[in-house]
């Protein structure tokens, strides 16, 4: 495991790691390259270099498919859901981890039980629920649904974090006369910040891609999220590949940015409490 005191071993390790990095990134390059080729070219040669690269698909996706609107909606729904889901979970996890009250464990189990089911299963009941709440074709409805779907995950991760914090912290604060909400907001919450960052990122990615519920719950073009908007390029017998790829690149780019910005936090989140 030690990368090597011997030179040939070290070279092999470098080769393996950097070679695999190329394999990890290559298919994504295909997506980027194809977004620069017209659909007719993709149709006749699905793989190939853009001989005459064109940004026309991007222009089309941006204007014709009102991508900017979709983007904004996706941002509202995903950010809203992640923030709301994390916020309610951060408080609930805190109470579960640090307070003693009857039914504590039961409630913890309850909040975690809904974890093992694919979200597809609930399609019909969720539609009826949203309908009876008047939340069809509503970004709010989608946001609430997504936020709720993140609760079990967040509560699980965050309560583990809260538990690992020393008991003296809040005891001391309580002796100093601090209220419960102050202890939570000013002492505990800042301490779990790395975990909050990781939890938010891991909720963000799948929600950003989720397309089934926007398809079923949203009706008007001005409310579409990105995956719902891109589904317009999938015809029954024909697919507008170039536009689709352009849309996918535009949809994935922010995730890359977010990921790069957050890697440090994620790694900190993962190792927090371990090293020191």
């Amino acid at each position, binding site marked *: 495991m030690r990368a090597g005191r011997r030179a040939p071993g070290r070279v092999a390790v470098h080769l393996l790691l950097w070679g695999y990095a190329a394999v990890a990134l290559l298919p994504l390059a295909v997506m980027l390259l194809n977004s620069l080729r017209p659909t007719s070219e993709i149709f006749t040669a699905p793989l190939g270099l853009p001989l005459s690269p064109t940004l026309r698909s991007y222009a089309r996706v941006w204007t014709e498919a009102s991508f900017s609107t979709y983007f904004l909606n996706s941002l509202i729904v995903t950010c809203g859901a992640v923030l709301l889901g994390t916020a309610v979970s951060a408080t609930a996890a805190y109470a579960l981890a640090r307070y003693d009250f009857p039914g504590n464990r039961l409630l913890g189990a309850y909040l975690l039980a809904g974890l093992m089911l694919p979200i597809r299963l609930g399609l019909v009941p969720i539609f009826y629920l949203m309908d009876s709440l008047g939340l069809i074709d509503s970004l709010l409805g989608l946001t609430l649904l997504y936020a709720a779907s993140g609760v079990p995950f967040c509560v699980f991760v965050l309560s583990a974090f809260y538990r690992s914090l020393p008991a003296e912290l809040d005891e001391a604060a309580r002796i100093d006369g601090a209220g419960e909400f102050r202890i939570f907001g000013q002492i505990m919450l800042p301490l779990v910040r790395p975990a909050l960052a990781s939890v938010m990122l891991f909720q963000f990615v799948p929600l950003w891609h989720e397309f089934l519920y926007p*398809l079923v719950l949203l009706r008007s073009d001005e409310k579409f999220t990105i995956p719902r908007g891109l589904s317009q390029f999938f015809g029954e017998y024909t697919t507008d590949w170039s536009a689709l790829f352009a849309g996918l690149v535009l949809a994935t780019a922010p995730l890359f940015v977010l990921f790069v910005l957050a890697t440090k936090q994620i790694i900190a989140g993962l190792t927090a409490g371990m090293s020191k």
Partner: protein
Amino acid sequence: MRYRRLPALAAASPETRKARRRTRWIAGAVGALALTLAACAPGGGAAGPGETADAGKVTLSLWSWRVEDVKAYEKILAAFEKSHPRIHVEFKAFQATEYNNILATGLSGADGPDVAQLRAYGGLQPLVEAGQLVPLDGKVDALSGFDPKLLEGAKGHKDGKIYGVPFAYQTLQVLYNKKLFADNGIRPPATWDEMIAAARKLKAAGITPFAVAAGPDATWTLPIVHEIFGNARYGSTKFRDAVLSGDKKFTDPGFTASIKLIKDLEPYFPKNVVAVKIPDVQALFATGKAAMYPTGSFDLAPVLQANPSLEVGAFQVPPPPGSPVSTPVTPGWADGSFGINAKSPHQAEALELVKWMATPEFGRLYATELKQLSAVPGVSPSDPLLAEMAAGYAAHGAPYMLLVDFRYGQPNGDAVFRDELQKMLAGQTDPAAVAESLQKGVEQWFKPGN
């Protein structure tokens, strides 16, 4: 599938286990609470998009699975709005693969469609049986002039009522590349042997004779390929009637022989046919690397879109040796229809629109704008090739039996057949076993004689 769910771990925590038994009734109680909440919440009667402020003007919402047709429909519907100035139609298209669900839920909730594009035959029944559609019998007079074969696709299987105005039908035949045929000295075959000889010649010249796909996205095309080559061999409409009445089964030697044709033709399909996808064969044919494309009329538009300069011809497959039928057959089916949401607040206007969709005006616009075969009687396609297909169907049409008659129960006949045909092409089963599986599958629900 997603790691987002990892927390499953949840289950992990040891305290969880003890609490589990009690969890159940708590969950029940909270569920009940949620239910009450939901029931008390406002909604249900939310205003549809139809209720615009505009005095007297009604907006109808029209749903479809034809994402690629949005522009054409806008043009077609403009003609309707011109003659019906009080009505505005909003066309909304959804991804075809998810459409059935979107429609089933959409019809039962707020903001649903007023008029919707409906699947044909078995695909229509869930909506009919749930009472989500308005029967059109006696309301749309023009329907009496429609081809009864096509109306079959818009009927409730149990009540026999008509729930939609058919918009199109599809025919099955072989498209061919005129230039490749000419270059290789081949003419559209008049006999089965001629067709095989042509295929052999093309293969020797390094051209894929038949653009057939059997890959992950293409299994549904395999029963279609079987229809095209094998319909005459199994006995066409006569065999269908015999199966429906219970006189024959799919294990009939004629049907097994028709399946064997596909296995025999495999050398003339692309290499590794089980790995080949639909876009692959469309591209093979559009770029002149494959000479013949056994497919439906629906594929003409995509192929010509990919290569507008392609010179395409079409022929009916000559009856294979041993066929009980001596003339070439063009199998076909009704593609779907337009029907009215039983919950639409604009019944009168919706009926206006649906009535208009049964007129030659709509039929003509539909045929020219979309390059499809209109179901409206008397409308002939302007495209000469489509006209040829229509003529073939009119003269020697036969129902694509597995789609038309064997989708009224689960498992669907064509679903079982498609899986088995792919298995056969992958070398895992033989024609007789395919026929047996098909028979066994439909027997799960099909009772001959009704």
